[in-house]
């Protein structure tokens, strides 16, 4: 009843939260509708009280600054440290332990009230429970703190400067002090200090990749080209970088009101999802609590029936409920998770939240950003077309791939054009760095060409020096070509060489011949068609294609010393000789296709969600295997069958590419349908909000979603995802803040490792929990028998705590080192509704079978120790009243000897120790059987898990220390027991082992049978 009430309330709370979030989402969308880019400059000047030549007056600027606040992103409202710590204390298991501690205090209070001042067990237990929660809480907090620190270290703390024009004077001020209306000037290499409307620009290009995911540089110019502020060319966004050129602009948004700021706010508004492991643990706590109350109540009734008073029965009830709490489990789970976290950290995955370790293992969908995650975020030459052939260039990061045939004469000409008609240069002093990683001054495609030529023809600087440049015309958007004129290498040859590159169709227009195998052939219809096909093919791959041509200028017409004027074009620019095409792309990382493949075999769907264009997105998706070979989109089928798109049955298409525009018009049901029907999905041109919607849709379909990303635009989705994975090197701070996990090497393949580790830890946690739970029964039954049969107490509270928190911790943790039983990467991700961490059969098998055997072992040993010291089993029953009578100093045993109370007490401690030893011996057997759930232990390798072996040794040594260390009897109630009492439980240990082998044999031999259903956990 209680729980149900709570549930309803929680749900209600969620709903209002969701509604609020929705409102905010809508709000952000609306705010995007600005018109600052559409209105004429005069209106803009008026609106912001500024001037596009002299800027604002500094007095007014100061007023605006006071009104709007500084131009900086408010740091995301970091959770206060105490809240973080409190969160560590409020998990499912933690709550269980708090409740148990409270019950202990109550029981202790009742005992005190009844005048029993000697029994402090309940108090100790309560204190221990609290201590365990607090200590593990500190541990978890420390882990989180450590990984937060790693993340914090990435932060770039250099304050940004900006060049502002106020009162007609240029001035460099801190970017924080900028206000709306300020006129600023930016140049290549600068970060844009706020959202600005471009007023003037000279070949200005910006890198928007962190915002939109486009890896290509975007031109910025004063014209308004699109009504959507995100698409138009006359707005440059805060925090993007200027690659080249210069521009001036008026600030239209500052601080949190910038686009980036809004996305950051959006991210912080998205609630964090509960991790699957937290859900599992809650489910597990439900089982435990249910069983505890069931048992407690049963024995409460039994106790009343036997004739105990209500109060006594109540105390028993509480004691049983508390005894059910697996004190050691919390520590085990925490340590197992942090071990895996550590293992992952060694593989360059830093986990911010321990629970996220397992989440990756449950992941069934990965929504991956393209730029920087799947790709290198570096334009690279991918293909060349010359001699009527498409040649593939090596696009791998480390140049490990295949190169093409470079013997053709045409190639030499093409390479010469590519090398000479290129203004990009390496920054100096980079000899040690591999060429692909060197930094270059120049635009992206020229950079790509520079690196490509450096790799293929060697030192390009020397090469250029051999061909002295006499004139050049850089690329501009009206001509769409670039050219330069060089002297020839051979000093005797006095001709000039004109090299030209540009948009292929423009280049072709100017050509009359084509170079094939080193021979100039007339450019006839046939070659034009060949060119068109190649151009279309390369374009269809999502690549940016450039055409290259050259000509030797006539010596007579253009003798040495001729003054070439690039602006007037006073030289031949037609009838050139076409050399070939070079296409460039931001290539996928070398490890990605393999990783995507592994994800597929592991049953994980990889969905690409990018801000980039559909064609590029699709090409990369096909390249890395997100769209597998042979899969077609609806459009592809339409083209193949030559029918209109509408007539294609969408279900035939495995793949689907949806762009942001289409997505905007889709209802959430339609999106769900699309995700359900097409296994291979690519989302292109998506906004941050849409990324969020896609993640939500996947989650609605019951998937556990991982999102990878690096840009600010990914951060809301990262936060919304079950596990957000940010890139460590390329990732923005916003992305890292929102993520649960960070890939330090930006390697998508690390995710696969993460998945593997996550799945392994899920399996191993299952084993650890099964191991830990088992001993709950032999810890509980002594108490139950004590109540019902009134025997002297066989197992004390402190002893139980020693089992839970000392001897059994290491073995249960050692199961985390167990190797996988089967190839877990070939299995489907677990179904979060069906494959639970702790299911009923695990609990039942551990409790009622193995636990029962252990109890019998304990009682055998207990009665042995009692009988051999003079107390026969039958005498023990009903003995309790006299046994615990502190005034009875001459109690007779079975042989007529008389015992004082203290002597009996030490005998009782002997029983505790004997029972303890029995549990230990059985637990050794237990840890061995828990190595596998299905395979025989011998197949798995009996001694292969070295940690487990050392854990067993440790367990035995610690047991011996507790038993035989002097002083133990009076401090912790351990007695030095006789050697043979260690041997008594051994037959039961063997029974456990043999029985479990039989169980596994049955499970393997008869899958799906009754045996399998009931006994496989």
């Amino acid at each position: 009843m209680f729980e149900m009430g709570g549930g309803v309330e929680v749900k209600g709370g969620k709903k209002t939260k969701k509604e609020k979030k929705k409102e905010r989402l809508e709000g952000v969308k609306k705010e995007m509708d600005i018109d600052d880019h559409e209105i004429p400059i005069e209106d803009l000047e008026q609106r912001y009280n500024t001037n596009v030549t002299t800027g604002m007056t500094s007095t007014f600027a100061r007023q605006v600054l006071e009104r709007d606040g500084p131009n900086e992103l408010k740091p995301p409202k970091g959770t206060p440290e105490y809240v973080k710590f409190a969160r560590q204390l409020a998990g499912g298991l933690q709550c269980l332990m708090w409740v148990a501690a409270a019950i202990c205090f109550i029981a202790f209070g009742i005992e005190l009230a009844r005048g029993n001042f000697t029994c402090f067990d309940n108090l100790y237990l309560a204190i221990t429970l609290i201590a365990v929660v607090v200590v593990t809480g500190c541990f978890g907090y420390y882990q989180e703190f450590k990984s937060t620190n790693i993340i914090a270290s990435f932060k770039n703390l250099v304050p940004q400067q900006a060049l502002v024009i106020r009162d007609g004077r240029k001035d460099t001020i801190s970017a924080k002090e900028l206000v709306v209306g300020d006129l600023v000037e930016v140049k290549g290499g600068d970060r844009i200090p706020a959202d600005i409307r471009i007023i003037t620009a000279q070949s200005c290009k910006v890198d928007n990749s962190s915002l939109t995911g486009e890896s290509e540089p975007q031109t910025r110019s004063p014209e308004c080209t699109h009504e959507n502020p995100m698409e138009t060319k006359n707005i440059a966004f805060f925090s993007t970088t200027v690659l080249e050129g210069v521009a001036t602009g008026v600030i239209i948004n500052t601080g949190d009101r910038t686009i980036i700021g809004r996305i950051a706010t959006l991210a912080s508004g998205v609630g964090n999802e509960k991790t699957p492991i937290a859900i599992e643990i809650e489910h597990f706590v439900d089982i435990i609590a249910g069983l505890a109350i069931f048992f407690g109540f049963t024995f409460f009734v039994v106790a009343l029936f036997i004739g105990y008073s209500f109060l006594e029965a109540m105390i028993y009830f509480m004691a049983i409920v508390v005894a059910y709490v697996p004190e050691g489990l919390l520590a085990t789970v925490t340590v197992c998770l942090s071990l895996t976290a550590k293992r992952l950290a060694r593989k360059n995955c830093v986990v911010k939240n321990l629970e996220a370790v397992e989440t990756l293992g449950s992941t069934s969908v990965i929504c991956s950003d393209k730029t920087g995650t799947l790709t290198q975020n570096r334009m690279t030459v991918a293909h060349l077309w010359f001699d009527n052939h498409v040649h593939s260039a090596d696009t791998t990061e480390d140049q490990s791939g295949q190169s093409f045939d470079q013997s053709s004469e045409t190639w030499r000409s093409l390479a010469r054009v590519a090398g000479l008609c290129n203004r990009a240069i390496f920054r100096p002093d980079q000899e040690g760095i591999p060429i692909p990683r060197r930094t270059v001054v120049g635009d992206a495609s020229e950079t790509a060409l520079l690196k490509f030529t450096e790799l293929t023809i060697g030192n390009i600087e020397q090469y250029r020096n051999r061909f002295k440049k006499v004139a050049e015309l850089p690329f501009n958007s009206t001509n769409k070509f670039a050219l330069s004129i060089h002297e020839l290498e051979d000093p005797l040859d006095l001709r000039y060489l004109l090299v030209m590159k540009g948009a292929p169709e423009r280049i072709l227009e100017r050509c009359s011949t084509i170079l094939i195998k080193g021979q100039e052939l007339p450019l006839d219809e046939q070659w034009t068609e060949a060119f068109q096909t190649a151009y279309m093919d390369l374009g269809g791959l999502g690549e940016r294609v450039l055409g290259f041509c050259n000509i030797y200028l006539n010596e007579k017409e253009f003798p040495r010393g001729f003054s070439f004027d690039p602006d007037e074009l006073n030289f031949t620019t037609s009838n050139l000789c076409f050399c070939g095409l070079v296409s460039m792309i931001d290539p996928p990382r070398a490890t990605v296709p393999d990783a995507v493949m592994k994800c597929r075999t592991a049953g994980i769907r990889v969905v690409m969600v990018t801000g980039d264009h559909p064609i590029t997105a699709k090409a990369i998706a096909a390249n890395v295997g997100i769209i597998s070979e042979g899969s077609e989109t609806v459009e592809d089928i339409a083209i193949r069958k030559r029918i209109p798109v509408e007539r294609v049955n969408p279900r035939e298409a495995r793949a689907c590419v949806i762009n942001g525009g289409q997505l905007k018009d889709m209802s959430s049901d339609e999106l769900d349908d699309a995700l359900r029907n097409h296994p291979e999905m690519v989302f292109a041109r998506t906004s941050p909000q849409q990324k969020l919607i896609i993640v939500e849709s996947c989650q609605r379909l019951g998937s556990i979603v991982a999102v990878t990303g690096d840009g600010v635009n990914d951060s809301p989705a990262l936060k919304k995802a079950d596990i957000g994975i940010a890139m460590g090197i390329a990732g923005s701070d916003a992305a890292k803040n929102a993520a649960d996990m960070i890939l330090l090497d930006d390697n998508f393949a690390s995710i696969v490792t993460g998945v593997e580790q996550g799945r392994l830890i899920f399996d191993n946690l299952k084993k650890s929990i099964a191991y830990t739970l088992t001993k709950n029964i032999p810890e509980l039954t002594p108490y139950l028998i004590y109540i019902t049969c009134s025997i002297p107490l066989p197992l004390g509270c402190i002893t139980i705590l020693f089992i839970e928190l000392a001897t059994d911790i290491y073995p249960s943790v050692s199961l985390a080192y167990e190797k996988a039983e089967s190839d877990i990467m070939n299995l489907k991700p677990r179904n979060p509704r069906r494959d639970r961490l702790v299911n009923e059969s695990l609990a039942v098998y551990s409790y009622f079978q193995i636990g029962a055997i252990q109890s019998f072992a304990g009682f055998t040993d207990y009665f042995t120790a009692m009988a051999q010291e003079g107390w026969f089993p039958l005498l023990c029953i009903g003995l309790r009243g006299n046994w615990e009578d502190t005034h009875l100093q001459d109690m007779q045993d079975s042989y007529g000897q008389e015992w004082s109370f203290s002597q009996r007490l030490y005998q009782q401690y002997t029983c505790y120790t004997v029972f303890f030893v029995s549990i230990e011996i059985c637990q050794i057997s237990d840890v061995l059987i828990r190595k596998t759930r299905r395979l025989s232990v011998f197949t798995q390798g009996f001694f292969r898990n070295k940690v487990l072996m050392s854990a067993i040794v440790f367990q035995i040594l610690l047991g011996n220390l507790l038993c035989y260390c002097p002083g133990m009897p009076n401090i912790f109630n351990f007695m030095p027991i006789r050697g043979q009492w260690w041997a008594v439980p051994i037959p039961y240990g063997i029974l456990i082992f043999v029985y479990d082998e039989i169980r596994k044999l049955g499970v393997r031999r008869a899958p799906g049978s009754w045996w399998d259903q009931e006994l496989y956990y």
Partner: protein
Amino acid sequence: MAGTTEDKPAADKEEKASSWKDAIYNSRTGELMGRTASSWGCILLFYLVFYLFLAGMFALTMWVMLLTLDDYVPKYSDRVPTPGLVIRPKSLDILINKNDPANYGEYVQHLENLLKNYNDTLQEKNELCPPGEYFDQDLKKEDAQENQGAEQPLGNEDVNARKACQFKRSVLGRCSGLSDNTFGYSDGKPCVLLKMNRIIGLKPRGDPYINCTSMTEAKIDFVYFPNGGSIDKMYFPYYGKKAHASYVQPLVAVKLLVNKEEYNTELTIECRIEGSNLRNNDVRDKFLGRVTFRVKVVE
């Protein structure tokens, strides 16, 4: 399509409402707590067999263990190396109103109960042992083995049976309850009997005797019976309940000669076994070879 979506919420609601009941009894599938009757039958049968097997194994191991036990002597007696000392009456706070027989009647009863077994008529059946020597009755090894192996013929006396030395109640003189059946409680000079716990095979070295001291300022004289509070060695060793059925352990009676001045004050008295190797100063066990009790006599 539209129809089904409309139905959905209604179906959901219904499901939610019935899921709780279904968990206990699902009428459609006939499942009780998630299992059908035959499934319950199977699982219960399985557990029945499983637990029967375990119980059988338990019984077997217990049986084997009991076989290794000796009927007469416990396998180990390391938990009771030295005896405890107890007093009768069974109270450590003795409050006596010497004028009210009902008040001390309970105490007298305790003493009587203990001394029943020491009645002279009963004790005369026991052996008259030479004082000052252990009354060793160890069987020779061959005998012991023979006895253990052979069935005891019915009616015959147990071959393992040991004789006991007599301890006549009359030895306790004024505290024997023979001359004064109120044990001195009626005149404010109460008797307390001290009894050493029985321990099989215990042979105290030296000459053990009981010595009592007053732990408060009040000076009390003690009179010991038998004389000097000595415990004779002939009562040792003890051979256990079964072999030594008629054994009675030696007693020492202490008569507390409480003066009138000490009436109404609480007297704390400690008695120890002295003069032997028996421990009487264990830090934790306050009853090992010693006993402390309080007496208050009122008029």
